[in-house]
C-alpha cells in the first residue's frame, strides 16, 4: 500500500441492486496528478467516484484517502466533490450564494458565523465560475449549465486539495469550459489532485496527465492521456468484438504497459 497516494482503490467491488457494477478496480492517484476517468455510458465511472468519496458501500476491496481507510477518514475539508447532473434546487428557493456557501461548511465550526476570510473565498469561487452578478438569484432560475457551474463553485469554496469532478463540463458552453480549464490548471500548479470524469475533454485535454478507461465495471486502460476518439475504439466500448481482431489488438483485460498499442493510433 503506497502511503503517498491521495486516493487509492484496491480490488474494489460495488454491487447495485444485486448486480455487480464495479469488479475488482485498482487505481492509485498520487498527489498532483490529473486523472481523466473515461468510458461508455453505464461503464461505472460515477459509481467509482461515488465509492471513492464514500457514497457507495464496497462489497469487496478497500478505498483509502490520503492513506487513511475510508471508514476512519474525517479530513473532509481536503475533498471537493462535484456530482453528476445533480439539480441544485430543492423545495425552498435557495440563492446561488447560499448553495456555494454550503461548500464552505467543511471548514466552519458549529454555531459560528462566516468569517471575512470565508466570505472572500465564497466570492472568489463565484467570480471564477462567472456567476458573481447572479449571486442573489434563485438557483432554479438558472439554466442547466449555469447550475452546473454553481456546483463547481460550491466545491471550490471548500478550498480542497483533492477534487472529484463527475462530468463538470456537461452542458457548459465552450468559453466557460475554458474558464474551468484555466482554474483547474491553476489549482494543479498549486499541487491539487484532480480526478475528472468526462466524455469530451475539450479545453481540459492539455491538463490531463493520465487516462483511465472503464469498461463494464473493470479498468480497460490505464496510461497516458488519450484523445477523445480513442476512448471509443471498438475494443473499449464493446466487450465481444475483440476476437475479430485477435491478432493485432491487445486483450482489454491484459495489463497494458506505459506505452499501450492502440488501434488507429496515428503518429
Amino acid at each position, binding site marked *: 500500500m503506497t502511503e503517498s497516494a491521495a486516493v487509492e482503490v484496491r480490488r474494489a467491488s460495488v454491487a447495485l441492486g444485486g448486480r455487480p457494477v464495479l469488479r475488482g478496480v485498482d487505481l492509485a492517484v498520487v498527489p498532483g496528478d490529473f486523472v481523466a476517468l473515461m468510458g461508455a455510458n453505464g461503464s461505472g465511472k460515477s459509481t467509482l467516484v*461515488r465509492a471513492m*468519496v*464514500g*457514497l457507495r458501500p464496497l462489497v469487496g476491496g478497500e478505498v483509502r484517502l490520503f492513506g487513511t481507510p475510508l471508514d476512519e477518514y*474525517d479530513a*473532509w*475539508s481536503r*475533498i471537493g*466533490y462535484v*456530482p453528476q447532473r*445533480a439539480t*441544485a434546487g*430543492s*423545495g*425552498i*428557493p*435557495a*440563492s446561488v*450564494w*447560499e*448553495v456555494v*456557501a*454550503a*461548500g464552505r*461548511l*467543511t471548514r*466552519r465550526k*458549529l*454555531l459560528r458565523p462566516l468569517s471575512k476570510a470565508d466570505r472572500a473565498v465564497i466570492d472568489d469561487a463565484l467570480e471564477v465560475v462567472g456567476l458573481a452578478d447572479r449571486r*442573489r*438569484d*434563485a438557483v432554479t*432560475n438558472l439554466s442547466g449549465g449555469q447550475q452546473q457551474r454553481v456546483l463547481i463553485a*460550491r466545491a471550490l469554496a*471548500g478550498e480542497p486539495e483533492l477534487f472529484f469532478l463527475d462530468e463538470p463540463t456537461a452542458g457548459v458552453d465552450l468559453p466557460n469550459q475554458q474558464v474551468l480549464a484555466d482554474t483547474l490548471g491553476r489549482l494543479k500548479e498549486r499541487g491539487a489532485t484532480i480526478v475528472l470524469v468526462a466524455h469530451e475533454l475539450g479545453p481540459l485535454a492539455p491538463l490531463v496527465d493520465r487516462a483511465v478507461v472503464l469498461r463494464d465495471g473493470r479498468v480497460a486502460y490505464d496510461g497516458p492521456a488519450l484523445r477523445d476518439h480513442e476512448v471509443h475504439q471498438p475494443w473499449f466500448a464493446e466487450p465481444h468484438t475483440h476476437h475479430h481482431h485477435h491478432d493485432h489488438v491487445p486483450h482489454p483485460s491484459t495489463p497494458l504497459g506505459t506505452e499501450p498499442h492502440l488501434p488507429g493510433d496515428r503518429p
Partner: protein
Amino acid sequence: MTALQLFNEPFMQRALIAALLTGLAAPAIGTFLVQRRLALMGDGIGHVAVTGVALGLATGASPLWTAVLVAVLGAVLIEVIRERGQTNGDVALALLFYGGLAGGIFISGLGGQSAAALNRYLFGSLTTISSADVLVTMVLAIAVVGLCVGLAPQLFAVAQDQEFARVAGLRVRVYNVLVAVLAAVSVTVAMRTVGLLLVSALMVVPVATAQQLTRSFRSTIGAAMVLGTLASVGGLVAATFASYEVTVAPGPTIVLLALACYAVAWPIGIWQRHRARLREPFAPGEAVVSHEACGEHPHAHGPGCGHLAVPHDDHVDYVHDGHRHAVHGAHYDEH
C-alpha cells in the same frame, strides 16, 4: 368584559405567549420539512401525538409530556422508515398516521374520557393552558427556534443535497433525526394553540406563502416565521373576540388567517416573477447578426412611452406584443 379586561386575564396572556412562540417555532422547522419535500410530515406526527395525549389523559400523567414522548418516538420511526424503504415508504407512513389517530381515540374511550378533553388538543383551546404548560412550551419553543436558526447552515446543506453534505463530512443521519425530533417537539408546542389536527398547516402554509415572494433560503425562513407569528397571534385574538358571540376554537381561525395570507401573496408572487422575467437584460450580441426592420409602426417609443424598456448591449429594446423594438434611425428594428 371589554377587550382590554380580557387581555389582562392571566389565561389570555398565557395563551398569547403560547401563540407567539408557536408562530415562531412551527414555520422555522416547517421550512426544513418543505425543503426536504416532507410537507406532510408534521401532519403525520400530529396524528401520532394524539395517542400520546390520550395516554396522558387516561393515566393521569401530563398530556404534554406523554405527547412529546410519543411524538418524538413516532417522528424517529417515520424518519427510519423514510430512510430505509424507498418503494412503499409512504404506505408505511400512512399506517402510522391512522394508527396514531385511531389509537388515541380508542385509548381515550377506554380511559372514560369525555370527547371534550381530547378535543381541546385536537383543535386547540385558549382557556385551559396552565402556567406550568406555558413554561414548558416556552422552553421547548425556544430550543426549537434556537437550533433551527443556529444550525441553519448545516440543516440547509443536508436538506439541499444529502450526498454533497455527506462528502462535506456532515453527519447526515444525525441531522435528519434532529429535524424529525424538532418537528415532533414543535407539534406538541403547537397543540394547545392550533391543535394537533391543524398543526401541520402552521408549519407549511407560512412557508408556502413566504416562498411566493422570496429568492433565498434565508429570507424564506425569516418571512415564514414573521407570517407564522402574525397568523398565530392574529388568529388567537380574532377567535377571542368572536367568542363573545359564539364559541370559536383558535386553531381553525389561525389556519384560515394563514391561508388568507397565502391567497394574498400568491397573485403578488406571480406578478413579481413575471415582471422579473420581463426586466431581465437581453443577452449581448445576436441583434447584430441580422438586420430586420419592423414594418408599419405608428407609435413612437421613448422614455415613458408606456412600454417596458429592457437594456440590450449599448441601447434599449422596447418590449410590446411579443416584439423587441430598438430605435434605428427613423425606423425600428426587430431585436
